[in-house]
């Protein structure tokens, strides 16, 4: 703990004990408690390091006139202090503990009515209960009864905390008894134990007497659970709900003897509750059963009671509840085969009914009948179908022998459902009028459409469904063409199309008609009146370009965009038109889609076209003109993609592409680093990083990524050392970096007011420094070895960021008081066109040595400052304590009082 803080703490305690009204804001107490918790977790004993706390607690507890929030804070603090056995003993000896947690004390003071006292009491106890002594204290004081009462407290928070606490108590008891009874715990098999369980603690001396106490606690709690599980009135459903939550918590965490006991106690009540058929309780009940079941599964022996409950659950009468239960079961993952098969059947039943496809060979007539009746109601029909569809992926994940039908048939059913949704009954094979009544409920429901499309996406990976590709494509194109499709439905249709393309890479079954329809529809949707649709379309065009497929005609691998839409010649004009879109999201998507579309040609090193030149000009225009950040960010990312595709390419970069790329990168760097949007600037720095990497990868000292983050013992791959250190190389590369504007971009980033930008720039500059003029070389060495490098200069114009840099250099120079020539104007014969232009223009543009700048800017110190979060000062405990003191002094001296406005957010 900070010494400064410790020194302030007594005074803070005084303030708090005196009055609670003068706190700077209502979060201070929480913050204080957080800090104490942190300190305790770090292994420091609170009582030892701050003895004043004991005094504080005892004084506050006696003063019931204090603000309830302070009292609640004290309750919780006491629990925290007493978390170690030693401190607990001290507190108990000073008889503080008895009073703090004495219910009667609070009730008599009339404070128990305040929920914050109640929750303080629960949480204090909960924190404290980490050792047997505390448990003993809990048992002896007979806190169980009030705790059980608090379960149904008016305040939801109190009730929930009481729930947690009860679970904690039971689990504590379990550990204690198991230590006692088993002596040696079967560590190997103990899988179900949660990591937070306190069974790891050692309990050396447990008497038989205490053990009896614990057994009594366990019995009392389970009795209570059993008793209050089944509601006597409808209004008591809330209570049952709470108990079920607790039970689920317990069954998932407890182990053999206790688990057995709990289950034995509650099984009948749960059964009774099930039979009562409360729809609101279906999911919580399922949670309980599944918690028991999954715990059971670990033991690899199926408990008959659990299995019976589960079977009952999967046979409830109410169709809506039944579907909920089946879905909950499948979502849980680990299952047994019988119940999985049953759940799958339940979930497929509505699909079977609506589509009339024989998914399930046999179904109980009664079940079918009640399901049909339920489906005739529009609202419940839609919600039930949606639950079924959302869970179809789970169904297909199950073993094939559990499935009532092959996945292909499920795909067929989903497709058929989608057709029904758009009002197409031609393919529907259901003829009965009741089925028709049901299917009319889903006509035009975009909710069902969305769920069905999601199911279709998920089903794409199932075995044997590839044969459905032509049908899927036809349907999706119809959906895309349908004027009444909701934008989100269109979006999902696009996603599904891309997904099926990427999974079924063999497109031989796609006909020319499909292609033509898709072309038509994509063109139309790119002119849609809703921007969301245009955006999805443009995005789709990009995504499709990223999917590689095989066209069987020549066994040739190409991207799906080429295979389906004829590639760039179709997509590029559409995307270029989208660059003019009034909606910035669409423009941004168009730019990234262009990058994806052109990526292939970059990688193949195709010759540069006139069109590409125009696109680049257009993009540069966007970067400098566009009013929205999204589009500008996308432009920078476009160049990053282009540049990285070039550098990832193994053969030497094709000239044609470079001739356009490098000049444009130069303008991207200069425009991007002057952007107002910090994300654009960060992306620009990423571009700069790529260039750095390209220039220096393999150079001594160059480490890709953040130098401070690399592990000191990390093995550096040999390939990085293949290029030998060559001074001339370095000079050449550095010169070109200066010319491309990388160095200026980095320097301007360094002084940027946005921290992420400055941080990134700082790290990159440090990387650069390591390569160009490592600090590890002495100044003399450096001058000797790197005389050439030192001559490389860059410009520092007299305005903006450069002025900042110059100021920093000047301060540094003054501080150092050395006769070094930092900041001195260097004659620049070779500092590039821009410099000469500036010189000829009359205004002298001073040039400085890059090396000198890198060495003189205190990059390490700056990195240190930047890494800290901007509010590190305000968030420190010291500042918190000071705030509390200041607020109280302001409060006590009203004449000098200033209004302290604290914004918590």
């Amino acid at each position: 703990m900070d010494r400064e803080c410790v020194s302030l703490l007594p005074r803070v305690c005084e303030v708090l004990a005196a009055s609670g009204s003068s706190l700077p804001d209502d979060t201070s107490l929480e913050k204080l408690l957080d800090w104490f918790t942190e300190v305790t977790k770090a292994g420091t004993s609170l009582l030892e390091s701050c003895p004043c706390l004991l005094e504080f607690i005892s004084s506050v507890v006696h003063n019931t006139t204090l603000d309830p929030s302070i009292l609640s804070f004290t309750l919780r603090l006491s629990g925290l202090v007493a978390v170690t056995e030693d401190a607990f003993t001290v507190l108990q000896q000073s008889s503080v503990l008895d009073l703090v947690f004495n219910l009667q004390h609070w009730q008599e003071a009339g404070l128990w009515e305040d929920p914050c006292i109640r929750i303080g009491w629960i949480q204090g106890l909960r924190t404290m209960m980490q050792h047997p002594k505390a448990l003993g204290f809990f048992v002896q004081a007979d806190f169980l009864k009030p705790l059980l009462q608090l379960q149904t407290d008016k305040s939801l928070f109190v009730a929930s905390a009481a729930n947690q606490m009860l679970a904690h108590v039971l689990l504590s008891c379990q550990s204690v008894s198991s230590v006692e009874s088993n002596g040696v715990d079967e560590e190997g098999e103990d899988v179900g134990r949660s990591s937070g369980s306190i069974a790891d603690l050692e309990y050396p001396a447990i008497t038989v007497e205490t053990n009896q106490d614990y057994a009594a606690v366990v019995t009392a709690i389970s009795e209570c659970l059993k008793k209050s599980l089944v509601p006597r009135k409808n209004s008591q459903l809330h209570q049952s709900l709470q108990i079920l939550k607790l039970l689920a918590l317990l069954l998932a965490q407890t182990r053999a003897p206790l688990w057995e006991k709990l289950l034995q106690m509650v099984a009948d009540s749960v059964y009774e509750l099930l039979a009562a058929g409360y729809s609101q309780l279906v999911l919580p009940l399922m949670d309980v059963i599944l918690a028991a079941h999954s715990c059971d599964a670990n033991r690899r022996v199926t408990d008959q009671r659990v299995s019976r409950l589960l079977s009952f659950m999967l046979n409830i009468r109410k169709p809506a509840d039944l579907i909920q239960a089946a879905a909950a079961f499948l979502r849980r993952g680990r299952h047994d085969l019988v119940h999985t098969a049953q759940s799958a059947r339940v979930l497929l039943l509505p699909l079977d009914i609506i589509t009339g496809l024989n998914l399930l060979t046999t179904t109980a007539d009664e079940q079918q009948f009640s399901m049909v009746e339920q489906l005739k109601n529009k609202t419940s029909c839609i919600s039930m179908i949606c639950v079924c569809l959302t869970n179809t992926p789970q169904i297909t994940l199950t073993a094939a022998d559990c499935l009532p039908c092959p996945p292909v048939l499920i795909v067929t059913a989903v497709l058929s459902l989608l057709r029904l949704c758009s009002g197409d009954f031609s393919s529907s094979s259901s003829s009965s009028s009741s089925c028709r009544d049901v299917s009319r409920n889903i006509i035009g429901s975009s909710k069902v459409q969305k769920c069905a499309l999601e199911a279709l996406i998920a089903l794409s990976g199932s075995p044997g469904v590839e044969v459905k590709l032509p049908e899927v494509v036809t349907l999706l194109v119809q959906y895309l063409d349908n004027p009444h499709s909701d934008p989100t439905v269109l979006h999902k249709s696009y996603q599904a199309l891309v997904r099926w393309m990427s999974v079924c890479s063999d497109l031989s079954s796609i006909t020319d008609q499909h292609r033509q329809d898709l072309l038509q529809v994509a063109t139309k949707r790119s002119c849609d009146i809703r921007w969301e649709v245009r955006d999805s379309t443009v995005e789709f065009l990009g995504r499709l370009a990223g999917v590689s497929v095989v066209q069987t005609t020549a066994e040739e691998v190409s991207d799906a965009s080429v295979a389906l839409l004829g590639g760039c010649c179709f997509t590029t004009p559409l995307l270029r038109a989208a660059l003019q879109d009034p909606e910035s999201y669409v423009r941004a998507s168009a730019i990234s889609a262009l990058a994806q579309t052109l990526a292939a040609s970059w990688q193949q090193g195709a010759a540069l076209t006139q069109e590409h030149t125009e696109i680049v000009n257009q993009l540069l225009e966007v970067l400098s003109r566009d009013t929205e950040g999204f589009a500008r960010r996308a432009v920078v990312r476009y160049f990053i993609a282009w540049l990285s595709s070039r550098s990832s390419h193994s053969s030497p970069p094709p000239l044609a592409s470079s001739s356009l790329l490098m000049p444009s990168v130069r303008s991207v760097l200069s425009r991007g680093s002057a952007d107002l949007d910090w994300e654009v600037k960060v992306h620009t720095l990423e571009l700069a990083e790529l260039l750095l990497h390209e220039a220096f990868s393999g150079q001594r000292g160059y480490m890709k990524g953040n130098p401070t983050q690399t592990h000191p013992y990390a093995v550096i791959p040999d390939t990085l050392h293949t290029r030998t250190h060559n001074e001339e190389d370095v000079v050449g590369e550095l010169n070109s970096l200066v010319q491309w504007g990388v160095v200026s971009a980095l320097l301007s980033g360094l002084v940027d007011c946005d921290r992420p930008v400055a941080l990134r720039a700082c790290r990159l500059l440090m990387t650069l420094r390591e390569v160009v003029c490592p600090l590890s070389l002495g100044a003399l060495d450096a001058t000797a070895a790197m005389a050439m490098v030192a001559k490389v200069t860059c410009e520092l114009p007299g305005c903006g960021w450069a002025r900042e840099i110059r100021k920093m250099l000047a301060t540094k120079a003054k501080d150092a008081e050395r006769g070094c020539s930092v900041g001195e104007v260097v004659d620049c014969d070779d500092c590039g066109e821009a410099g000469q232009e500036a010189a000829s223009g009359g205004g002298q543009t001073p040039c400085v040595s890059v090396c000198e700048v890198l060495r003189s800017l205190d990059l390490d110190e700056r990195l240190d400052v930047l890494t800290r979060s901007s509010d590190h000062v305000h968030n420190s405990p010291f500042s918190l304590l000071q705030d509390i003191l200041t607020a109280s002094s302001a409060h006590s001296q009203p004449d000098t009082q200033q209004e302290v406005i604290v914004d918590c957010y």
Partner: protein
Amino acid sequence: MKLYCLSGHPTLPCNVLKFKSTTIMLDCGLDTTSVLNFLPLPLVHSPRLSKLPGWVSKDGTINLEKRELLDLSTIDVILISNYHCMMALPYITEHTGFTGTVYATEPTLQIGRLLMEEVVNFMERVPKAQSATCWKNKEIQRMLPGPLKDAVDVWTWKRCYSMQEVNSALSKVQLVGYSQKVELFGAVQVSPLSSGYSLGSSNWIIQSHHEKVSYVSGSSLLTTHPQPMDQSSLKNSDVLILTGLTQMPTANPDGMLGEFCSNLAMTIRAGGNVLVPCYSSGVIYDLLECLYQFIESASLGTTPFYFISPVANSSLEFSQIFAEWLCHNKQTKVYLPEPPFPHAELIQTNKLKHYPSIHGDFSSEFRQPCVVFTGHPSLRFGDVVHFMELWGKSSLNTIIFTEPDFSYLDALAPYQPLAMKCVYCPIDTRLNFHQVSKLLKEVQPLHVVCPEQYTQPPLTQSHRSDLMLELQPPPMPYRRCSVLNLPFRRRYERVYILPELANSLVPSEIKPGVSVATVSAVVHSKDNKHTLQSVPKPPPVAPSKKRKRVMDEPPVVMTPKPLLSGAVPLEAFLATLQKHGITEVKVEETADGHILHLQAEDTLIQLEEDGTHIVCDNNEPLRTTLRDLVLRFLQKL
């Protein structure tokens, strides 16, 4: 009450309601689909069209859906619901001996006039040297080729009316405003309600004192330009006649509008022209409004929009001045003051230009690619014919159908083979089945009458049970030429009592809150108003020496027997009987009252709720005594 159904076309209704001695025609829509049987009327001679095989250019005639179901001259009034449903007006008012009045709102009249003018103009500017009618003969028609042979009721097809007939017909129109009450011969009151479909479109309430009939025709719940639909006034109707639902139940107007815009943008971007065959009023206002917002986002800022119609100017101008008939949003603009429709701005900025025809100014300013709005949607006459000839050969161009009245494939038939792209996005804002069932749930009429097409799913989509009206009790369907007896009887009639007669009445209370008086009077009925007047006293016979004239006997004034009310209390009656020496009475309880058996006298007295019978053979004195005893317990009026 009877309903005569003269039209089988659900959106172009023509019904006649006979209600309380009035004969009311509800709309007179003109089904013009028969024009599709004719060749297009080009402005310039088209060698291609004239050489089409099996087609012979004939006189421009128009179908008229009428049968001799009833004598049209007996019609008292015609109520018009919107300007599309009045196109047959000249046929009815001019050649049938019609002498009544036509009621319509002002926009309906003005825009209806424009539409008629447009049709007449389209027809008259390509005059026919000769006209032929012999082919209407059934024998000859049989020999005609192809679809013509199968055309039904060819003999009812009529020549297009002239401007003179239009003017004469429209002169019979009397203007009404929403909720204005118009008395028809004192028998019924009719009043128009906003129906939300088009400018000035209305539903009608026809009511007497005790009956209410609602006529719902062409209504819309969408928020387009017209004033929203008045639903609450339709409540408590005995009969609701429902016509003019959407013709495109599966095409939602929003989706179609989106489709329209994206196809338009797509064509323009590819360098093609867009042709929109449409009526010169109605949906075009919404299309222009939608485009106004879309132009910027689709970067169509420089593309010219042309609206060509003989009445283009008037239509655009009229829409701006009927502020009181517009939706609230547009009405408020007028107070700013701003034009309610944004097409004013399009015109100002020269993005939208309108011309009366393709001659003159238009030809000098015509620039491609462009968007042209022009009529007629049937593609058989009007300037659209010219553009079809001009643009049909290029696949860059697109024709977008927005009016649902004509089958677009039939409309395009004489222009095939066609290279130009064709897009069908019918925009019909009228009520769909979902909306209508909600509406009916709200207004709860006792009976619904509708065309039979609405009671079953469309033929092409027989599974779509959501595309029909499902009501409890089921609606009464009608088809062309059917005569329906509307299922309610007249039970009550309002009668007035003159003050002096009322003064003479002496009401007596028979049970709390109910008083009764007898009255003798003469009913005087005039103009469907009934008045009770006191019976005139017989004029004193003048002591005249003149020759005694034969005078009508004055009605013999007979004092009517007093009316009885009340009930005979059993106990008290028995006591009275005993007083009169009748002791042996056996009382038997029946469903309606009691039977008293006077055993000694061998007489029965049946006391029932609404009558007392004394059965007593051959003992008149006893009967009279018993009668008087019964009468003692009853009140006399």
